[in-house]
């Protein structure tokens, strides 16, 4: 967070932005469902905060190494933990498989401290990770209050039972939180939106119907399509991007050529050393140089730097290669892999530098063409600002939505790669109480912090209105007008299935002009269309609910996006917008039609006067070809002199029912 808030336009040095105009989220209560909190972290200082909001009805519960009187404050105003569901299933006492855990809200894992401090941590200057990313860490809403709900336990990296999460929802709704930040997911295939195995979908339905915005991570199963989780339309689902910061690490070869890799290496520079690529004789000379299965000859490797190649995107290949090279007496590692900006240090400050296949191949050619190849690995630098373009993270789960493809997911994107924030001192990656972590878990609290600012500015906005403001003002291009890319193989310009509306633009969302608002009735429309029975929908809502006898279209749910998964000839969808800008304003439609479609809007001019707050319009999308296609993307924007209210438009023509999704 030493850079992410500046990247998002919420610099604390700027006198005019949503951070300042919202009094930094003062008075807003953010509930965090996670692994608890390390309350002694400076990130949770409460200096300068006013009294706890009077509507707060929650509690601080003492427990192992957590004394409510000592550890709760005007910043951490609530702390509860939920383990009965987990223990009832897996037996008492809690078996953390060798990891430490506390039967209290204290965070042994570090994940909960990281997310809570990202959402609402105080300003802590001069923080870095071993000198990298130096700056001020803080939350998005530094004056918001935190209610900690520990629902995940430090077993196998963090496990959370749906019975425990539902209890946390039950009590958080009662306690009076305004926003819930949930960096938790399940796995594909998903449970339905009304299945309590997905405790998040059911619990969040009740939370949202009481005006609480629920922000969830989209999960880390990208870049494959249809992997996005937490897809219910009432949830605000967050994808992860990089930001305008990188960590170049010079690799200087013996021929004086220098390449830039990426690492978080801050150890001692090792000077020029021998460079080897483990090539084996035989039919497959490259087999010995695969990072995850390195078989090294100690006499060849000792005192040298090793180059290896891997097609694995995940970090495990780097970790196992580093271990093998260290065991063989090597002094450094260069890993050639598909580009991914997620960086973790190798253990013991061992220099391990990542490069892409092109640079890896050039280094390999140098090794093969030189009798005594040498290399120098220099320490990592931090670069911030314009030269570095943000990208949707490789790991960030992608749409389309596998439960209801007409509901665009993810909704929005925020920084979630190499995020430096407070952590537990027990976190294996911590440096003086801070760690760099990556995941949609890290992107989620960025959006939760932004939502807290918006709640402070517009206390009467519904969760759907807040989502609309975020989606329609998000940035799909870099300010320099370059399109934002999505990591993957190969990289490509990002589309709504990668980043929803785009990268969050909190200052735009504070003044969106128009809103696509929704209430519980709209969510019932969704549940009816999804085929849930009248009786179960009625019990969900607590009052008799009859679905319309004429089947409504899922496409007419008043979302700030339009996604048509099965266009044959022509489809007309309806939307309603609410003017939250100047009372007298005129908006004109600007269409960017997806390839192979004609799009028309009626009316294409919306004139708002004092009495008129809401207006309806229709969008007719017509296919110009008769073939099954994948998705093509465009947009519909309403513009006045001040605002651009942009909705992503995604269309797939489907003349025949496909046996596989062409997305």
């Amino acid at each position, binding site marked *: 967070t030493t850079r992410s808030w500046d990247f998002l336009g919420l610099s604390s040095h700027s006198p005019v932005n949503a951070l300042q105009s919202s009094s930094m989220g003062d008075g807003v209560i953010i509930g965090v469902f996670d692994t608890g909190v390390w309350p002694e972290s400076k990130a949770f200082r409460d200096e300068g905060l006013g009294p706890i909001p009077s509507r707060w009805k929650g509690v601080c519960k003492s427990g192992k190494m957590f004394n409510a009187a000592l550890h709760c404050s005007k910043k951490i105003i609530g702390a509860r933990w939920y383990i*009965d569901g987990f223990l009832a299933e897996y037996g008492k006492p809690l078996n953390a498989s060798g990891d430490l855990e506390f039967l209290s809200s204290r965070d042994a894992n570090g994940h909960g401290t990281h997310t809570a401090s990202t959402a609402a941590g105080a300003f802590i200057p001069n923080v870095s990770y071993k000198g990298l990313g130096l700056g001020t860490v803080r939350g998005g809403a530094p004056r918001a209050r935190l209610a900690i709900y520990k629902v995940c336990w430090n077993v196998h990296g963090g496990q959370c*039972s749906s*019975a425990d999460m539902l209890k946390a929802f039950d009590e958080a*709704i009662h306690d009076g939180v305004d926003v819930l930040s949930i960096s938790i997911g399940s796995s594909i295939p998903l449970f339905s939106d009304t299945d309590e*195995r997905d405790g998040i979908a059911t619990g969040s339905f009740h939370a949202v119907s009481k005006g609480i915005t629920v922000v969830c991570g989209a999960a880390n199963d990208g870049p494959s399509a249809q992997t996005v989780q937490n897809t219910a339309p009432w949830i605000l689902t967050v994808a992860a991007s990089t930001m305008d910061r990188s960590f170049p690490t010079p690799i200087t070869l013996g021929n004086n050529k220098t390449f830039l890799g990426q690492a978080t290496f801050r150890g001692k520079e090792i000077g020029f050393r021998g460079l080897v690529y483990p090539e084996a004789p035989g039919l497959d000379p490259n087999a010995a140089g695969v990072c995850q299965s390195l078989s090294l000859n100690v006499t060849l490797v000792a005192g040298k730097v090793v180059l290896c190649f891997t097609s694995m995107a995940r970090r495990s290949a780097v970790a196992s290669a580093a271990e093998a090279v260290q065991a063989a007496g090597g002094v450094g590692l260069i890993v050639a892999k598909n580009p991914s900006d997620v960086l973790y240090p190798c253990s013991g400050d061992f220099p391990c530098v990542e490069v892409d296949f092109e640079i890896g191949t050039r280094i390999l050619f140098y090794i093969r063409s030189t009798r005594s190849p040498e290399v120098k690995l220099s320490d990592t630098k931090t670069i911030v600002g314009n030269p570095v373009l943000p990208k949707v993270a490789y790991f960030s789960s992608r749409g389309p939505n596998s439960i209801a493809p007409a509901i665009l997911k993810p909704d929005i994107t925020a920084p979630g790669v190499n995020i430096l924030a407070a952590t537990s001192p027990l976190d294996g990656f911590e440096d003086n109480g801070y760690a760099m972590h990556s995941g949609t878990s890290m992107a989620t609290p960025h959006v939760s912090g932004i939502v807290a600012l918006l709640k402070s500015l517009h206390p009467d906005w519904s969760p759907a209105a807040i989502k609309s403001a975020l989606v329609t003002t998000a940035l799909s291009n870099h300010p320099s007008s370059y399109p934002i890319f999505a990591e993957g193989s190969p990289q490509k310009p990002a589309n709504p299935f990668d980043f929803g509306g785009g990268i969050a633009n909190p200052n735009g969302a504070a003044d969106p002009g128009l809103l696509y608002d929704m209430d519980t009735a709209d969510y019932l429309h969704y549940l009816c269309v999804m085929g849930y029975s009248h009786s179960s929908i009625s019990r969900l809502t607590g009052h008799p609910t009859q679905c319309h006898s004429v089947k409504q279209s899922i496409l007419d749910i008043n979302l700030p996006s339009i996604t048509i998964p099965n266009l044959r000839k022509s489809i007309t969808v309806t939307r309603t917008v609410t003017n939250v800008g100047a009372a007298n304003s005129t908006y004109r439609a600007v269409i960017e039609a997806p390839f192979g479609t004609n799009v028309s809007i009626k009316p294409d001019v919306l004139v708002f006067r004092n009495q008129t707050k809401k207006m309806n319009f229709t969008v007719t999308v017509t296919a110009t070809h008769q073939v099954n296609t994948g998705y093509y993307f465009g947009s519909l924007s309403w513009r006045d002199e001040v605002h651009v209210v942009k909705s992503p438009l995604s269309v797939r023509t489907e003349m025949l029912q496909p046996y596989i999704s062409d997305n």
Partner: protein
Amino acid sequence: EATSKVHIVYLGEKQHDDPKLITNSHHEMLADVVGSKELASQLMVYSYKHGFSGFAAKLTESQAHKLAELPGVVRVIPNSLHKLQ
């Protein structure tokens, strides 16, 4: 008898605002199926009574089926695990 597992008995929106009454009704519903109030207390894991109505309890498959057929029960579903992201 098959082993017991945690199930969530989901009753939807709460029907009134007295959490005590709601919890009592959960215990009664569970007692009707498992045979006694004492056993119901042992098996009850959570009573959801503020934001919505329902409970989590350790149930055998046959008890879960019986509960699912009671009026007012939206669904009975086994507990499951989620992960940090």
